């Protein structure tokens, strides 16, 4: 593919002063949030823990995009296919639904962070499912105590 090393360089961008951003590939702040494709470096990774920009050695899959929905799942694409979107600078919105803490730690440039916050009922459902599983795993037919799942 025609991806240059600068196009797929991981570097620090956002966050505390521990970041060392590569100024040559720094996107403008005006298009940082809503226009990932406008970033000068299409595949840059943003990570608060990265200290120095170093080119990635793993480029083998970048040209291996097989397109959105190639696995039969509707409205889905592979990471490699999305990488092509960024490389081709196709204008789009990247919505990152992780928690704010995770997003600030590490994110792709230009991403819009709207965390998915589940309701109390949602968490209760998982808690009940876990309790149900634990109860049945501990109780066996012959009375032995056994944990069959973790």
């Amino acid at each position: 593919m025609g991806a240059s090393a600068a196009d797929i360089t991981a570097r620090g961008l956002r966050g505390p002063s521990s970041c060392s951003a590569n100024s040559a590939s720094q996107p403008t702040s005006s298009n940082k949030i809503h226009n990932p494709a406008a970033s000068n470096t299409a595949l840059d990774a943003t990570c608060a823990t990265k200290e120095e920009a170093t080119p990635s050695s793993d480029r083998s899959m970048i040209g291996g995009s097989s397109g959105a929905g190639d696995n039969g799942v509707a409205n889905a694409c592979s990471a490699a296919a999305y990488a092509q979107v960024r490389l081709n600078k196709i204008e789009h919105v990247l919505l990152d639904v992780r928690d704010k803490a995770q997003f600030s730690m590490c994110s792709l440039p230009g991403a819009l962070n709207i965390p998915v916050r589940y309701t109390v009922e949602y968490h209760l459902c998982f808690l009940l499912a876990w309790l149900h599983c634990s109860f049945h795993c501990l109780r066996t037919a012959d009375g032995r105590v056994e944990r069959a799942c973790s």
Partner: protein
Amino acid sequence: MVELKGRVAELNEAANQGKLPIYVICRRGIASRSATDLLLSTEAANGGKVTNVEGGLLQWNATVDSQFPAY
């Protein structure tokens, strides 16, 4: 999904009222799948141009950029 529902208007504005495709990502691709389904089922359907990035950032690390931290 409380926050996402409350910020649909913001998302629509970012997507220029449906003119731009939306790609949804998370760490493993599970929460983003739910978010994608939610967006497609609401007024934020964005003309069907909402796409989940499968495998999320872990897959991004595995197949696109190994420099991106996996956690």
